[in-house]
């Protein structure tokens, strides 16, 4: 068993061996290293062919057509392109955008920057479960709303939004719908011909592909227009200039081909591992699971261990590679904005750990993790004054704390 045990697949995945092998054929003098835009020789033609194949694999993953896939540097760029591109292109039609407070920073910060350009953004607050109520979206719609951007799966709490219903609502009002699918591709099936979406952000490295490559699905049926944010040689139908990174794209394509082929077994495996972890941890006293447990992606578990601080717990869990919603920095500690947005009290947000399992997680690793968490939580509670108060039956809300 390799230590520390990797349980942070939501942050990134290792590249699948089969993907890495294929990528290596597209780099050196002996390989297909050409510029896919070189139309005058075989080096270019071969590279272009490899890119075409990869584009097809990426498209097939979501049942799109190859000419609806725009390669980008990753889901962050895809989010930027989708939101900024649509906003600038359609600003004469309207200047209002709807999104949610629990979106990834790539969406939130893009929206913030558009506010500086004169756009108006509504940030919806989800329910405690993490789910956004359809009627809240409907109530936020205005005559000048041009775009709704809602993520499919939340990166911290794994909540799966009902994008079928949200998309249908948007289309009934003539509003474009962008979905950040960075955390859902390879875990939740998506068919863009069935689900009413116009723009979909995809990342390769969350699905065992390389980092630094992703895609934006831009629907052609119906046709969606957007302004580019990166200008240059007019690559990617003018929507994203820059020489195509053949080896990255080939890796991305291969990762998607494998993910499509193995989708059901990947999902089954992740769910089995996650449920094993949940079962192993559920007998710990005073824990709470953040985000809806049913409408949740197969690989995610986000738990708050009451009266234990997350960063200290991470230090105890040296055998585990996981992440926490607590950041003890600067003047006072800051907890996860996602957890705060769904109403998790600060003290529980500070106590949260996100576990995310993946293709290579084993039962042995999960069992080791369960043991380590039990030991770490017990050790820190032994030195936690809050645990003492809890055990004495003191209501923490009645204690007069400093700095409040």
């Amino acid at each position, binding site marked *: 068993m390799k230590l520390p045990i990797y349980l942070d697949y939501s942050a990134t995945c290792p590249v699948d061996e089969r993907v890495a092998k294929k990528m290596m054929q597209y780099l050196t003098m002996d390989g297909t290293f050409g510029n896919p835009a070189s139309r005058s020789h075989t080096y270019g033609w071969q590279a272009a062919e490899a890119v075409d194949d990869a584009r097809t694999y990426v498209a097939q993953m979501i049942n799109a057509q190859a000419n609806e896939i725009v390669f980008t540097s990753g889901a962050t760029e895809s989010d930027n392109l989708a939101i900024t591109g649509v906003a600038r292109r359609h600003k004469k039609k309207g200047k209002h955008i709807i999104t949610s407070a629990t979106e990834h920073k790539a969406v939130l910060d893009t929206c913030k920057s558009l506010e500086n350009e004169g756009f108006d953004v509504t940030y919806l607050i989800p329910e405690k479960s993490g789910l956004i109520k359809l009627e809240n979206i409907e109530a936020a719609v205005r005559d000048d709303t041009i775009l709704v951007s809602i993520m499919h799966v939340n990166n911290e709490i794994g909540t799966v939004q009902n994008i079928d219903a949200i998309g249908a609502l948007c289309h009934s009002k003539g509003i474009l719908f962008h979905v950040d699918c960075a955390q859902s591709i390879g875990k939740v099936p998506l068919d863009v011909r069935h689900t009413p979406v116009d723009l979909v952000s995809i990342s390769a490295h969350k699905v065992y592909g390389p980092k630094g490559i992703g895609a934006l699905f831009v629907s052609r049926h119906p046709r969606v227009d957007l302004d580019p944010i990166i200008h240059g040689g007019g690559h990617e139908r003018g929507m994203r200039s820059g020489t195509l990174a053949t080896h990255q794209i080939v890796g991305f394509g291969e990762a998607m081909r494998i993910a499509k082929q193995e989708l059901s077994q990947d999902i089954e495996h992740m769910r089995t591992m996650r449920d094993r972890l949940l079962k192993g941890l559920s007998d710990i006293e005073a824990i709470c699971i953040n985000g809806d447990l049913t409408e949740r992606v197969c690989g995610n578990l986000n738990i708050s261990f009451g009266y234990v601080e997350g960063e200290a717990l991470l230090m105890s869990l040296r055998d585990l590679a996981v992440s926490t*919603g607590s950041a003890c920095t600067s003047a006072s500690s800051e907890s996860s904005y996602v957890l705060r947005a769904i109403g998790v009290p600060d003290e529980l947000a500070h106590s949260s750990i996100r576990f995310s399992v993946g293709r290579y997680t084993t039962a042995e690793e999960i069992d080791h993790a369960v043991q380590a968490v039990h030991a770490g939580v017990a050790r820190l509670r032994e030195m936690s004054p*809050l645990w003492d108060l809890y055990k004495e039956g003191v209501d923490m809300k009645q204690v007069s704390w400093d*700095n409040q």
Partner: protein
Amino acid sequence: MVMQNYGVYGDKVMDHYEHPRNVGSLDKEDPNVGSGLVGSPSCGDVMRLQIKVGAGGIIEDAKFKTYGCGSAIASSSLVTEWMKGKTLNEAAQVKNATIAQELALPPVKVHCSVLAEDAVKAAINNYKEKQHREKEV
């Protein structure tokens, strides 16, 4: 989300975190025990520091319990070591800068040492208040 970052912690923080000195509680009803509880759960740091004062105003024993990051735990562990054998006046001189320097805390963790200094002062004040009340009775 924050990834594991114990890499930013120095050896001394790790040592106190792994082997915290003087974790525990003293009898808070004892008139010779002073207790300080500082910080708040919503800020992610709570320290409880207790001292037992013997003859001549010498601190005989010190115990702590801390909810907080590794630096907060290390800061409180360190001050309990420092306080033992000192007079109340000597102990009250402890400065957060000295704690931060000893543990080589990075700037983002300096607030942990501030909290430890506050805890020392709160425990001493609590002891003094108790003594004052004892005399009045």
